[in-house]
């Protein structure tokens, strides 16, 4: 954890963390923070400009844009985070089993992962939504289904590396149980890797899931969601382009914050970058970048 | 006659402000071999690269380096490039990574020869074959058609020595040329290095942390520690009477190993 102190010296990382925490808190306490009901239609206030009562103005149905942005944090960011946590957990369980026990379990589980990964993620997500029908929960299920295999692979590689370490062998020799070894010796050291890969997936997931909502496959009206707000704004963009501004800025800000945060986290947690901070980070970074392509933009 | 004279060489890392090599001065007489010893990170490699102006741009060098009486920092890039290989040549630590992994070795050798000589293709080929054969590589034609990963570390080291035979440089910098090898191959490569010196009569800077090797090949020894030269003199005098504590520590810790190795090499040499 002392490594995390490096983050404190990085102003961009600190700003990112503040933005992320602020967003999350706003999302959780949306009903207390939002000035209005996000779904309250008021035709008298259609396209109303910024005012003291409605800080960011009103949309085509006269709804409070600020409140919609705040409520939109829930599906656009919080639920995405939840889906991420679930897929990382599944990936971790499978990755740990495969990497630690090796042998047949490993081969079998990795074959399944290979098959999952041979589908293009985006198309797989569309297929699952096609089967289950439109809706945010189905998109989240789709994302968990396509993402876990990827996490499982990375976590397995990381676990394998440590499971072969001498101190783990020693612990086995003196008769410690598997669970004890995992909890005491493997989870703490692989935690850094897990943190880095999950943080680097957040932004692409936020972009993709908002993209699905933008296409009308995700959150259904009138619930507020950033991607959908952009879609609604697009329909009137020739006359009122300023409506694109608020949700657009919100997404860009949050995605950039997560990007900076994950880069900083990686530099802070990666032992090879401890001494030569600016030097090449080699294969690992490349793999991570490859991940970003795999989980392409929506 | 002095071929190389270094005065007050200091290397600074501009980013962190660390001094990596501090005010080091030494010189090298024509035809002799100077060994630089010291643990890793003591600035040996940085010093060597500075002699060829090969350090990364982020490193700031001060002091003067006179090669054959000329200040190397005054050469244009092109002049410097013409000197590299033809006049100052470097043998790298790990031959396996020193060659472009995606082309066959012959490509590099021919390019290097073409850079410095106006030989016809046939003549280049002939010279390279001769050089590879004389470092005891059989089937030189085949060797040149191999990718680096298909050959062994010892063979790659010989290929680098062979290229030196072709280019006939005046100064060879051998940067830990045997560190990556096993004991027997080390011995063979050391023999090739000695023979190389005899043949082309070059001067040599031999970097190593293995004092046994140093004793075998070098005339003078320079010991570096944390970027500073702590000991300097002829090999025999340093070994007999080290002035610095660090040097005597190095010598004593290596003694057991050295003895064994020297006896091994000595006995083999007489055969």
């Amino acid at each position: 954890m002392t490594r995390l102190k490096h983050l404190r010296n990085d102003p961009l990382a600190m700003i990112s963390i503040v933005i992320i925490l602020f967003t999350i808190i706003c999302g959780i306490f949306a009903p207390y923070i939002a000035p209005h009901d996000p779904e309250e239609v008021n035709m008298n206030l259609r396209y109303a400009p910024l005012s003291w009562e409605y800080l960011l103005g009103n949309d085509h149905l006269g709804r409070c844009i600020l409140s919609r942005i705040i409520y939109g944090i829930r599906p656009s960011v919080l639920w995405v985070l939840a889906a991420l946590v679930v897929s990382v957990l599944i990936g971790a369980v499978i990755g740990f089993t495969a990497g630690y026990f090796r042998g047949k379990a490993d081969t079998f589980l990795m074959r399944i992962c290979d098959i999952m990964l041979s589908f293009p993620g985006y198309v797989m997500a569309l297929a699952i939504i096609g089967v289950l029908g439109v809706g945010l929960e189905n998109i989240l299920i789709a994302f968990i289904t396509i993402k876990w295999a990827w996490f499982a692979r990375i976590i397995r590689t990381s676990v394998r590396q440590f499971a072969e370490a001498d101190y783990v062998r020693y612990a086995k020799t003196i008769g410690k149980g598997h669970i004890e070894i995992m909890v005491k010796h493997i989870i703490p050291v692989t935690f850094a890797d897990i943190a880095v890969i999950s943080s680097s997936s957040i932004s692409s997931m936020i972009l993709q899931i908002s993209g699905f909502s933008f296409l009308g496959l995700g959150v259904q009206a009138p619930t507020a969601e950033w991607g959908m707000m952009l879609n609604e704004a697009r329909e009137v963009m020739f006359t009122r382009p300023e409506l694109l501004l608020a949700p657009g800025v919100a997404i860009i800000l949050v995605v950039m914050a997560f990007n900076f945060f994950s880069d900083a986290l990686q530099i802070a947690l990666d032992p090879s970058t401890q001494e030569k901070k600016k030097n090449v980070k080699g294969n690992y970074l490349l793999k991570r970048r490859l991940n970003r392509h795999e989980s392409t933009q929506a | 006659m002095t071929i190389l004279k270094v005065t007050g060489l200091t290397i600074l890392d501009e980013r962190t402000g660390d001094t990596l090599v501090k005010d080091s001065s030494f010189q090298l007489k024509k035809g002799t071999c100077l060994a630089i010893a010291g643990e890793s990170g003591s600035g040996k490699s940085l010093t060597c690269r500075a002699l060829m102006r090969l350090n990364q741009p982020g490193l700031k060098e001060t002091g003067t380096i006179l090669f054959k009486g000329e200040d190397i920092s005054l050469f244009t890039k092109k002049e410097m490039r013409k000197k590299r290989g033809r006049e100052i040549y470097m043998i790298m630590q790990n031959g396996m990574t020193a060659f472009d992994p995606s082309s066959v070795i012959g490509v590099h050798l021919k390019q290097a020869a073409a850079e410095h000589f106006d030989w016809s293709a046939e003549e280049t080929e002939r010279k390279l074959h001769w050089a590879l054969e004389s470092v005891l590589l059989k089937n030189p034609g085949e060797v040149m058609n191999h990718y680096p990963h298909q050959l062994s570390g010892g063979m790659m080291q010989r290929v680098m020595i062979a290229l030196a035979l072709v280019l006939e440089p005046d100064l060879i910098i051998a940067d830990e040329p045997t560190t990556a090898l096993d004991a027997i191959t080390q011995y063979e490569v050391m023999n090739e290095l000695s023979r190389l010196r005899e043949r082309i009569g070059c001067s040599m800077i031999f970097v190593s942390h293995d004092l046994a090797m140093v004793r075998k090949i070098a005339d003078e020894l320079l010991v570096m520690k944390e970027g500073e030269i702590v000991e300097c003199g002829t090999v025999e005098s340093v070994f007999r009477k080290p002035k610095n504590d660090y040097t005597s520590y190095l010598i004593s810790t290596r003694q057991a190993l050295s003895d064994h190795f020297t006896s091994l090499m000595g006995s083999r040499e007489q055969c």
Partner: protein
Amino acid sequence: MVRYMIRRLLISIPVLFIISFITFVLMNLSPMDPAKVVLQAQGVPVITGELMEQTREELGMDRPFLIQYADWLWSCLHLDFGTSFVTGQPVWALLGPAFFNTLKLTLVSSFMVVLFSILLGVICALREGKALDQSVRGISFFLTAMPSYLLASLMIWYFAVKLDLFPTNGTGSIGSYILPVTVITISYAGIYFRVVRSSMISNMRKDYVMYGRACGLKERHITMRILRNSLQVAISVFCMAIPIILGSTVVVENVFAWPGVGSLSVKSIVSRDFPIIQAYVLLVAAAFVLFNALSDILNAVINPMVRNDL
């Protein structure tokens, strides 16, 4: 080398089978009864149990599962993906032209993505840490944080409406390619150029560069080597870019009203037109697997070290 190619292609065959099987199973997992979807789509007012049975029989759904699968697979190999539940047209008649349109967009975009990634990556690597490198990276950082649909919308608003330079939709002219291709290029080149850049930079610090310089080789020769070695990494990434772009043109197609598989699949998902979704998934997944194999083969051609694996 030929042996490697054959083996690599052979490995793809079981993967294709598994993919087709998963696709088939997935569509049968749907909580909605296909027979019901068909009847609803045909506008049948009252759906009786008898009618459902009859439709099921027509769809061949009363037969054993594996036989249904084999049958379906066999017809798929003949490009017969069944008929659309909604319009009753053969799926291929709808999907074929759309797939062709998407392919055109994908190939043009992929070419631009590769071109710009290499260009920017090489320039930034050679100017590492300088103003140009910093600004290109900064701008790309911002642009890749922007959802591509927002970028697309802004581009339509600015170039097509404000400046009236390009058409906003359709595949009619070369001009109609410019905006969608630009959006895809910005989204992907912004990511891929970093791969080229970091690969170049890590190669620039390798021993062979130092040794090449120590032998007095021309900078031009050395740069060519660095380029060659770093593009090896990049090429496998680029080969994967084609199927990935193919699979994710959905958003761009929808914004620019491009009549491709992306638009079609979204429409089909909303109307629950399973045969089209199924065919779409199968087609793109197969393309994905084939391009994957292709990238490995290409990699083996360039990189001799890989050939010994497998």
